[in-house]
């Protein structure tokens, strides 16, 4: 029975996601709004497919946020994080303090006590990591100045959750220590109370343990796992690691998301980074989707209908206050106007932590029941409205800002990514890689043979382990920033798979491919790749030149013959490829195919390969002409009288 129930729920959630997200994307709303709408539709207010169990789902799905921060950590090298310290503590710290005070002031003016004001201010000052980062990532804005600033603020908020949880009971007049209700509430998020120096010491030990393990052990573990060649075990290892870190963090009383983020940063220099990203990404995506759906489902529309004026008013008040504080701070921290509006709109909502904090506050009696209910609805609505606000920024505010500037503002790209990606790094790709590196060009290399990686790493190549025919791995390797991808894998099926993926998702990325046989060549021609070379052709031809030399041909003559043959060959390939497209039935079996092809090639060989260049230097015709002229002159001489 329980199993049935599980499948029923899975069916409802998945169906809702599969139907609404593509529609939302099509309409240009982004996936987050799609999920939220799906949640509203299947929620208790519209279709009633899910009821109060939606809240449990939400708590479970919050793990998606942990995974997201792990992935973000992977993208962020430690030195980059260090560079962001001013923005994290300055911008993030000020945002939290000023927003809390501003909201507190308004709450007090609305007739509540100062204690309630501060408590509500703290609850609402936090923004939604899940919604903001997912939306920014989808728009490719994470690496821009506004994205980095948003991220800094969110990171600081994550760190601030623990002190806030400690502070709330104080506001209610309780003593934090030894209070069972507090421990219960805190456990949801961070395990147990932070008591004394012992706990602090434990935290330090665990963090240095993670740093040490990530730095020195992870590489060996992943290598052993990768050697098994079992993809699912690699995925299992990655999941195991994230879950273990989250639990460890719970145990010592830190935010799991923060721990996962830290682990990600430590692993950012690891050569299996792309593979880890590719493995965790789908889980994160699904869990976050689930999370957004449950947020949508949890919006209490009954309350909204009961007091629409109040709720909508408070919603805009909340967004207004947060926007103002963010905008002023953004300006103070040097964000240019276009980046600043984006930054301010992004973070103007309440966050998922507000749900936990409000529930906690209700328990403590810091806020009263009716106010708690209103806070829930306002926060959920503010999250749901964020994608719409960003759309508004995109379509209305940004064009206005840009028009008011004399010169269009260039996006600041902080991290320059490698311009070339080489997929497949056997003997063939290696030469290309060496050639590029010899000319100071950086390449990201993808290869799925872990033995190779060890050797290459030893010689300072930047090589990542992974199957390049997977869309998520191509994305992780930076296909959206790179200029050229070299497809040098030896499996032609895989090669075509990669090319199809790249053409579908990255139409601007130039594709240069290694062709492994005739059929592969035809397929490459059909796909109109930007360039290809038959892997054995050039070296065979070079050896062919040496054969002619041994037979007594002059070096330069043999060289020119090879040049003519090369040109002839590309014509033959083009001609044959047309047949290939016309009737594939002609090629019944592999052997027959090869035989008929060879015959055709040889036939064209016989009559072509004319050598224009020879006739330019070695002018038999000229010699003849001059002889004729002179003999005519001689004849005339004979006729002339002496």
């Amino acid at each position: 029975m329980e199993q049935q129930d599980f499948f029923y729920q899975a069916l409802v959630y998945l169906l809702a996601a599969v139907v609404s997200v593509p529609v939302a994307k099509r309409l240009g709303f982004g996936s987050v709004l799609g999920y939220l709408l799906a949640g509203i539709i299947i929620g208790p207010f519209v279709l009633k497919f899910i009821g109060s169990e939606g809240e449990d789902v939400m708590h479970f799905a919050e793990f998606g946020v942990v995974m997201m921060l792990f992935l973000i950590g992977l993208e962020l090298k430690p030195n980059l994080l260090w560079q962001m310290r001013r923005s994290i503590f300055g911008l993030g710290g000020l945002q939290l303090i000023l927003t809390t005070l501003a909201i507190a002031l308004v709450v007090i003016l609305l007739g509540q006590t100062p204690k309630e004001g501060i408590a509500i201010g703290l609850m609402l000052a936090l923004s939604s990591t899940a919604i903001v980062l997912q939306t920014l990532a989808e728009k490719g804005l994470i690496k821009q100045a506004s994205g980095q600033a948003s991220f800094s603020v969110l990171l600081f908020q994550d760190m601030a959750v623990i002190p806030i949880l400690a502070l709330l009971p104080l506001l209610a007049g309780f003593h934090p220590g030894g209070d069972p209700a507090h421990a219960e509430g805190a456990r949801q998020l961070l395990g147990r109370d932070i008591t004394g120096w012992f706990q602090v010491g434990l935290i330090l030990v665990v963090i240095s343990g993670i740093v040490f393990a990530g730095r020195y052990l992870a590489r060996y573990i992943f290598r052993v796992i990768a050697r098994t060649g079992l993809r699912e075990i690699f995925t299992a290892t990655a999941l195991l690691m994230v879950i273990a870190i989250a639990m460890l963090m719970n145990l010592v009383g830190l935010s799991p998301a923060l721990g996962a983020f830290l682990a990600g940063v430590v692993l950012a220099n690891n050569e299996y980074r792309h593979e880890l990203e590719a493995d965790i990404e789908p889980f994160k995506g699904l869990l976050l989707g689930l999370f957004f759906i449950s947020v949508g489902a949890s919006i209490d529309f009954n309350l909204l209908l009961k007091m629409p004026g109040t709720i909508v008013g408070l919603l805009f008040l909340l967004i207004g206050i947060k926007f103002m504080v963010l905008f002023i701070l953004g300006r103070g921290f040097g964000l240019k106007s276009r980046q600043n509006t984006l930054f301010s709109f992004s973070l103007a909502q309440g966050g998922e932590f507000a749900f936990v904090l409000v529930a906690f506050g209700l328990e403590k009696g810091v806020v009263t029941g009716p106010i708690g209910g209103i806070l829930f609805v306002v926060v959920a609505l503010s999250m749901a409205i964020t994608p719409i606000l960003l759309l508004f920024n995109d379509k209305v505010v940004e064009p206005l800002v840009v028009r008011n500037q004399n010169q269009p503002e260039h996006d600041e790209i902080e991290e320059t990514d490698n311009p070339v990606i080489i997929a497949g790094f056997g003997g063939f790709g290696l030469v290309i890689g060496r050639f590029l590196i010899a000319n100071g060009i950086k390449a990201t290399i993808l290869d799925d043979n872990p033995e190779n990686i060890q050797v290459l790493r030893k010689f300072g190549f930047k090589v990542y382990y992974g199957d390049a025919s997977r869309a998520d791995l191509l994305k992780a390797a930076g296909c959206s920033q790179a200029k050229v991808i070299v497809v040098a894998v030896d499996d032609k099926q895989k090669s075509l798979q990669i090319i199809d993926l790249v053409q579908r998702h990255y139409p601007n990325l130039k594709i240069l491919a290694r062709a492994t046989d005739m059929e592969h060549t035809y397929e490459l021609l059909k796909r109109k790749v930007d360039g290809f070379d038959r892997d054995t052709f050039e070296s065979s031809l070079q050896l062919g030149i040496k054969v002619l030399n041994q037979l007594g041909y002059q070096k330069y003559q043999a060289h020119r013959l090879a040049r003519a043959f090369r040109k002839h060959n590309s014509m033959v390939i083009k001609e044959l490829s047309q047949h290939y497209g016309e009737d594939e039935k002609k090629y019944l079996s592999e052997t027959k195919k090869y035989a008929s092809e060879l015959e055709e090639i040889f036939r064209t060989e016989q009559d072509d390969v004319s050598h224009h260049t020879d006739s330019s230097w070695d002018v038999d015709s000229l010699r003849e002409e001059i002889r004729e002229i002179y003999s005519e002159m001689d004849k005339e001489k004979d006729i002339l009288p002496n």
Partner: protein
Amino acid sequence: MKSMTPKHKIAILLFHPLLHKSRVNRELIRAVEDLEGVTLRIMYDLYPEFSIDVEVEQEMLLAHDLVVWQHPFYWYSSPSLLKEWIDIVLQHGFAYGREGKALAGKKVMTTISSGGKREIYKEGGIRKYTIRQLLAPFEQTVKLCNMEYLPPFVVHGTHLLDAQGISEAAGDYRRVISSLRDGLFSQEELQKYEYTNDIIQQ
């Protein structure tokens, strides 16, 4: 006026092995590349391995009235690809010889950039010979192919030329090329000058 079909079709063949470092030739090209009736061929791009396609080049010659060989003046001559081009494209029986009349009546002009100033290329000067004398092999080649050799377009003193000077030269070049395209100079008039630059100074 713009839609008027050009009187002469011009092909500019640029021979420059180090185009990415070029200052003068790149600007000259930039000044004429958008002109109607002008075909631009970057020869070291087309034939990086010197495997010049004879058929393609001959067809290109047949399709134009004026061919410009544009290049830096290396060792009082051209970069080696132009010599290769002359060697193999101007075939006996096509460009010269009893039957070789395919190019008769067409015109050729040399455009060069030279580090030295004009004064030193004088009889009795530091370089002993004039530019026209040094270009004699090209002129003679053209004449043997029954074509007419126009006075060259020469940018002198390129090592000393600043951006201003280069852009002036580029402006002159644009005027020369478009005037030749529109047939504004008569034959007799042209041959009165040492350089085509001189005619537009008037």
